[in-house]
């Protein structure tokens, strides 16, 4: 069981976190016709927007209530009202996802009350647009928490409550924020191959997969439909992926009675086996031949790849569920997790991370803990540490702004695990140190110490 080491510094050095409202906006972006709205000053929105654009290389719908000094002192309900009405008129979204920021939360505004008032006052004008609220102050949490809060808010605000007639083939899937576009597309294919009908919330594979629409659209185009969110209660079963998705899964259970199964990770042979068995038992269908084939490919990849993983020291910095996903992947192939850094101590998954300790901290911590490691695993901001330490960097998570195509990288199920084994083995092979007589000299550094 990993020991959790709390943050002890006053100055965070090279933050690992992106902000909580950004995580909430990210989840809202997985809904069709959506417009996330930051309730705060315009800078909060601008920074998040630029970061999302740098990662996805896409125009990202994201707006702001543009709080100024006056609103900060007198209250910002007017700004929220004006923003919602403006967005409705200009972009006609089906969903406005309000994400609060540190500024408005420090003021202690009753945003839920404000939104209820706004909806009451403009019932007609706002017909056809859902407005949901995620309380996501920047001074708490990071992307994971923001994402989970937004999904919970959508379920609590939109899904029809009460026990409903269940559709025997319908599965509700709640993916964590660490799943890429490719992961979600691949998972959908897998579920459909059992004759099941998945409804995925949020579905960024429909909205952030990078396509060229034939007209200019101001909101998201693609993703989970609001109608599908409303009808989540007719699913047979809910599958949540990542510990942070327990909260929305519980919300769905409480609201509609749909039972959930939670997978902490879908990477690796054993977790995928459990997932495939579950699909088979829900559907009553045999495991399709191509899925069996993928499993055999993964077995072979593990056999070919393990030479490169054994004994390697890996330093990982990621949010809790992604840290767990990656650490179990590397440990499962014989590597040692030499450093594990994460953003918060609240996640239950941290104790299960296969490392001696997990440091709550930043990339500055990663850099000092990773001395002597063979591989750094974190997002693009790890590039400075990688350069200084001379250790290769595997870019994963958010943001990845200095490489293309991170959203189309697969990391789950048989195929994603196979691909990741190849990627890592290739990095190791590209960074091999040729043997030298000095390094191999049996008399070098051989001191008798007791």
């Amino acid at each position, binding site marked *: 069981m990993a020991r959790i080491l709390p943050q002890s*510094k006053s100055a965070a050095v090279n933050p690992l976190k992106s902000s909580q409202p950004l995580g909430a906006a990210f989840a809202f972006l997985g809904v069709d016709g959506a417009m996330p709205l930051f309730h705060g000053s315009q*800078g909060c929105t601008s920074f998040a927007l630029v970061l999302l654009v740098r990662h996805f290389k896409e125009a990202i719908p994201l707006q702001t209530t543009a709080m100024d000094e006056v609103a900060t002192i007198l209250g910002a309900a007017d700004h929220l009202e004006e923003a919602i009405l403006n967005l409705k008129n200009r972009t006609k979204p089906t969903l406005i996802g309000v994400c609060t920021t540190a500024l408005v939360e420090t003021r202690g505004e009753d945003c839920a009350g404000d939104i209820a008032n706004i909806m009451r006052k403009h019932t007609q004008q706002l017909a056809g647009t859902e407005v949901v609220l995620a309380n996501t102050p920047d001074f708490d949490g990071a992307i994971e928490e923001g994402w989970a809060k937004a999904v919970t808010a959508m379920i609590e605000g939109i899904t029809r409550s009460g026990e409903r007639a269940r559709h025997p083939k319908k599965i509700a899937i709640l993916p964590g924020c660490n799943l890429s576009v490719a992961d979600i597309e691949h998972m959908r294919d897998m579920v459909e191959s059992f004759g099941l009908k998945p409804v995925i919330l949020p579905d960024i594979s429909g909205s952030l997969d990078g396509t060229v629409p034939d007209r200019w659209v101001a909101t998201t185009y693609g993703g989970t439909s609001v109608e599908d969110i409303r009808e989540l209660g007719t699913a047979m079963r809910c599958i949540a992926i990542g510990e942070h998705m327990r909260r929305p899964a519980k919300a769905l259970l409480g609201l509609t009675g749909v039972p959930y199964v939670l997978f902490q990770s879908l990477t690796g042979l054993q977790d995928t086996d459990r997932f495939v068995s579950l699909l088979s038992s829900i559907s009553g269908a045999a495991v399709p031949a191509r899925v069996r084939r993928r499993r055999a490919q993964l077995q072979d990849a593990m056999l070919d790849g393990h030479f490169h993983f054994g004994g390697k020291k890996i330093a990982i910095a990621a949010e809790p569920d992604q840290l767990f996903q990656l650490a179990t992947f590397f440990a499962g192939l014989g590597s040692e997790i030499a450093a594990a850094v994460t953003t918060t101590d609240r996640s239950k998954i941290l104790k299960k991370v296969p490392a001696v300790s997990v440091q709550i901290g930043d990339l500055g911590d990663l850099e000092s803990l990773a001395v002597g490691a063979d591989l750094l695993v974190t997002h693009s901001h790890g590039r400075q540490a990688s350069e200084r330490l001379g250790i290769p960097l595997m870019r994963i998570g958010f943001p990845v702004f200095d490489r293309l195509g991170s959203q189309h990288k697969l990391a789950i199920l048989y195929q994603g695990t196979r691909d990741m084994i190849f990627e890592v083995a290739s990095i190791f092979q590209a960074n091999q140190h040729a043997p030298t007589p000095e390094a191999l000299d049996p008399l070098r550094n051989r001191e008798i110490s007791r």
Partner: protein
Amino acid sequence: MSSLSAKIKDAFDEPACDKNRGKDAKARKEGCSKSLTPGAAAGGCAFDGAKIVLQPITDVAHLVHAPLACEGNSWDNRGAVSSGPTLWRTSFTTDLTELDLVMGQGERKLFKAIREIKHTYAPPAIFVYSTCVTALIGDDIEAVCKRATEKFGLAVVPINAPGLAGSKNLGNKLAAEALLDHVIGTVEPDDPGPYDINILGEFNLSGEFWLVKPLLDRLGIRVRACIPGDARYRDIASAHRARAAMMVCSTALISLARKMEERWDIPFFEGSFYGISDTSQALRNLVRLLVRKGADPEILERTETLIAQQEAIAWKKLESYRQRLQGKRVLLNTGGVKSWSVVHALMEIGIEIVGTSIKKSTVQDKERIKQVLKHDKHMFESMAASELYAMLSEHRADIMLSGGRTQFIALKAKTPWLDINQERQHPYAGYDGMVELVRQIDLAIHNPIWSQVRQPAPWDCQPELIGELPCTRNETAYLFDEFACATAHEC
């Protein structure tokens, strides 16, 4: 907050700015940024603006006193380049948590953070940025900085520009104020000389100032301080001993230039290193100011010789693009100086300008644009995304030059696009920079992808084929398409 309000008021009263002088007292008080519409606003805040101006100072530790988002979502994201120190790319923030806020521990944490940075990194200075939340809870960063300066014996500079104070532009000005109040003039250089100049508002994006500096070196001109591009703290602290200054990005740092003239008698002019004739003019203006301040007039002639040489080389290089770019239509969608200063050179080789944004342009800028464009209608304040998309998808321009904000409008409209704002990958300043810009325009327009991505899918342009096939038999449809590919170019 009262000193901040005074600063803001001061920032909005700028005698050196034409636009500002054209307003009455009341309009001036409201500042130069239009008030924001909730739900329809774009752009950064005052903190963003302050950090943009100051962060390229390379050996300073920039510490952001805020909850995570202000720094966590924005660090290491600009294209300025350093020739030495890398500390400016290390991100420091107090990352205030709920507990810090509830317990009122902001100031304590800030002080401890300063101490940690001092011990671990020993920088010549630490810049401390206030933000919305720390302004709201009333943390007195000026007092903390003062105390830290005394205690640790290094410059700890408060940058009082919280986001809620206003726009990015205001933040630029507040950053300049901080430099004037706390940095410039605090160090006496031991080697002042008659050829010392300051460059203000040059950010060294993609290292582009290095395309200009060798020209100054050749003339024997020494850059005392380039603010902020590739700057060192000491350079800026001793910038008050320069003899002349050039101000490059007019909206950002005009107050800095004017106040340095008032305080230290450093005359300045507004100029640009974008475009060939502008670069030449900037060199001329610089040496004239130096001569006025006592430099040997022989430098004037040497400058003309250098200009003549460099211009001839650049025009010769540009001439080779004429054939490929004659008649190509460029849409310039960016603010300020960049708009007009490249226009001349582009037109010189036969490129047409089909429109330009004048959002950030001054009255003079607009006059110059009018002269070169002939039609006023080609000038626009700003264009809605949908309008811009329509214009581009109807191929009313062959390329758009703009900043990242409109990048995807051009790309989704399948139109060539070139980044000429802060995230750009290529240096465009000086004579060589202009040639590079034209080269990049040529590469963008003539990339073979355009004809490919504009081609519709073959099965979408063969209606008779779709009509004949039942929808369910997709596999068969694909087989037919293989045959259709042979004739795809005709559809």
